[in-house]
């Protein structure tokens, strides 16, 4: 007796078709799983056996062999429990013959037969659609996620419900995915930030032009606070981007159950003790890193110079290409990683620089060492740099600032303008930029960055051309000489 179910294994973010074959033979009762299954997958035996018995179904007293094909693909995780159980039940004729056709399945079984959601349901559903399955049997919590991929979900809470469905005793699922609300993550509001008008302005420009932003200043003045508010002023993700982000977060197991598309740009802030693999992705079975989790969103590197040099250097590829490639013996996996980088740093190692109330004790050597950790190449990736001195007490008593919503409207409008036609500089604007290159320490690459930022400023001002005042403002956010080694 042989039965097959369709399921999917994840390679990076990509679903790969896996067929679960169950074969029942006469002989001493036994249960074996073959086909490069990892430990979590091998342990499916126990869960499947208990699950089937708990669902008051019969565990066949036969010699059972389950094969996960193709046999050369590594399978990991607990999502194979449900397809294995269904294959065993079909092979022992407890499900009507042929009822599994057109279905895929994914999910983990509890010992009492309940179904638990597994990460990556969205990716599995996309795989199911590509492989011609109409419906995907999954845990109830994953139903809305599966529906996003255009596959009809069969959300079940218990193995018995799945069996009832296949026996035709239960109607097809009532839940339709498009009812699931889009996720608008709670992002802190810009209204909480008092004073710091220049930094707020720079944040708005960075949001409008998707520029990488570096905030430098003494500790405790709200650099991190500002950076955390960036996702709240970015445009909401469009359908394509939202689906991409939702898939990534589903695979990483970050999606709260029962939710729809992620519409808020993601925000990730790895600590500076994070390893290179944690930041750019990796591991024996490659997993997406923080740069991928920040895809289409914001990656905040708080205290940038505290990050080990290899981590910072590893960021250069994703910053350049928008992808990270993780090479393994089994092949190369490419993760998307198009994120906006926000860095924060102090102006000196002791942090007193820029703070009028404290004296800085840093020796020139210490300053140089601190700055040398940021390679020129990395500093060059920041289009806008803002040095923030400590505001006076009276400024902090000021009224709350402008909330995020109107800022986001301006940013969205500017993005739309930039997508249409990019404003060209006037002759006077060009002349100003040339004069600035002569007078200020500004490299050729620095000039290109200023030109980019000035286009964004023009777009925010709804101007059709880049005027000199736009260039002048952009020059205010150039990389200051005090961040270079002197």
């Amino acid at each position: 007796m042989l039965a097959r179910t369709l399921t999917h294994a994840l390679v990076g973010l990509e679903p790969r078709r896996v067929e679960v074959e169950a074969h029942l033979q006469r002989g001493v009762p036994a249960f074996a799983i073959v086909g490069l299954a990892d430990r979590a997958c091998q342990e499916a035996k126990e869960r499947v056996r208990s699950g089937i018995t708990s669902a008051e179904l019969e565990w066949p007293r036969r010699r059972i062999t389950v094969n996960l094909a193709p046999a050369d693909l590594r399978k990991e995780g607990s999502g194979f429990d449900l397809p294995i159980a269904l294959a065993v039940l079909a092979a022992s004729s407890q499900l009507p013959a042929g009822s599994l056709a057109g279905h895929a399945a994914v999910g983990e079984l509890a010992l009492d037969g309940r179904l638990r959601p597994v990460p990556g349901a969205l990716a599995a559903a996309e795989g199911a659609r590509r492989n011609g399955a109409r419906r995907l049997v999954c845990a109830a919590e994953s139903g809305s996620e599966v529906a996003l991929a255009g596959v009809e979900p069969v959300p079940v809470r218990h193995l018995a419900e799945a069996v009832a469905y296949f026996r035709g005793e239960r109607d097809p699922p009532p839940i339709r995915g498009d009812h699931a609300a889009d996720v608008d993550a709670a992002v802190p509001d810009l209204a909480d930030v008092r004073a710091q008008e220049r930094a707020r302005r720079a944040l708005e420009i960075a949001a409008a032009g998707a520029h990488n932003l570096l905030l430098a200043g003494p500790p405790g003045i709200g650099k991190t606070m500002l950076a955390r508010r960036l996702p709240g002023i970015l445009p909401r993700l469009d359908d394509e981007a939202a689906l991409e982000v939702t898939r990534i977060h589903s695979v990483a197991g970050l999606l709260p159950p029962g939710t729809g598309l992620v519409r808020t740009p993601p925000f990730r802030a790895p600590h500076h003790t994070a390893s290179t693999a944690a930041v750019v992705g990796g591991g024996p079975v490659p997993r997406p890193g923080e740069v991928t989790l920040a895809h289409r969103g914001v990656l905040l590197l708080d205290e940038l110079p505290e990050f080990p040099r290899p981590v910072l250097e590893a960021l250069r590829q994703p910053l350049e290409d928008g992808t990270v490639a993780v090479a393994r013996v089994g092949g190369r996996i490419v993760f998307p990683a198009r994120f906006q980088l926000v860095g924060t740093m102090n102006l000196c190692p002791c942090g007193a620089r820029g703070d009028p109330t404290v004296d800085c004790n840093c020796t020139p050597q210490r300053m140089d060492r601190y700055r040398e950790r940021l390679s020129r190449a990395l500093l060059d990736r920041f289009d806008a740099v803002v040095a923030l001195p400590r505001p006076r007490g009276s400024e902090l008593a000021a009224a709350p600032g402008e909330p995020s919503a109107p800022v986001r409207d301006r940013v969205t409008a500017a993005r739309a303008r930039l997508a249409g036609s990019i404003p060209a500089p006037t002759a006077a604007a060009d002349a100003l930029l040339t004069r600035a290159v002569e007078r200020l320490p500004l490299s050729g690459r620095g000039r290109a960055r200023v030109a980019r930022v000035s286009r964004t400023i023009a777009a925010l001002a709804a101007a059709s051309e880049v005027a000199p005042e736009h260039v002048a403002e952009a020059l205010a956010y150039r990389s200051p000489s005090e961040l270079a080694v002197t």
Partner: protein
Amino acid sequence: MSELALVAFAAARDSHAAPREAQTRAFASFAAGFDERAYRGELARRGLRWLARSDRAFPPLLASIHDPPPGLFLRGLGDGELLERRCVAIVGARSCSDYGAHVARSLARDLVRAGVAVVSGLARGVDGWAHRGAIDGGGVTIAVLGCGIERDYPRAHTALAAQIAATGLLVSEYPPGVAPAPWRFPARNRIVAGLCSATVVVEARERSGALITADLALEEGRDVLAVPGEITSALSQGTNALLRQGATAVTSADDVLEAIGVPPARRVDPDPPSAPAAAALAALDNGAGSADEVARFAGLEPAAAAAALVELELAGLVTGRSGVYRR
């Protein structure tokens, strides 16, 4: 006796080229085997020059100090005549504050515009900013090294040294190959003070090398001026102590020029700034401020304030460091 032979002898023995060294028997045997012409040829090949004390071009001010060097090695495109100009030394802390950097730079810029050469020690901090200010002002600057003439020390100032060499001079009493050593820097300071009719200390801690320069200048009867700083800042303790002892307080380059009797340069009025820039400039009248403070005082939007401050920076009317703008 050849001064060059003495200098080469001292360098080989890693000692100070004191005149009494010339009396020793070791020197006599060294001098006998010293080929001065070959040595000078080698110097010329490396773009270096030697100016002996006995040379007529040797700066008389330096020749008149208590312990003048036997001569100076010169590097750079500036001619030796530079050393005969009126010189002012600007010295101070290596780990200076942004205020110190700003003052050193703008003082140097204004001094060179009056035709004065700015002398300093190529060290980090105040020294470096003084050299940069002089270059900004399109003037001449002289860096006195505490190591062999061919070296750029500190290494971080290699580019600055090249800029100085392009129009000014690097000078040292040490021949090529002499490594920097702690004792050579106070010795270098006597040349800094000796070349100049006045020494300005910008920022100095209580025990700072800059104060050694000031003491040496005082001993030679030269003017010593100090830039006042906050009394609560450790970086101003040395300068404020000098002021208490009677040093002239520097509030602008004109104070320095008055001390050495050089008429101030006629001010070239820059193009009148735009209205927002003028407002921003007025907002800085009461001292340094952040961009946000300037915007508030001048009644400008943050975007307009940013543009106005850049306009002022480009016009050389304002400098910004660590997010703080100063006139």
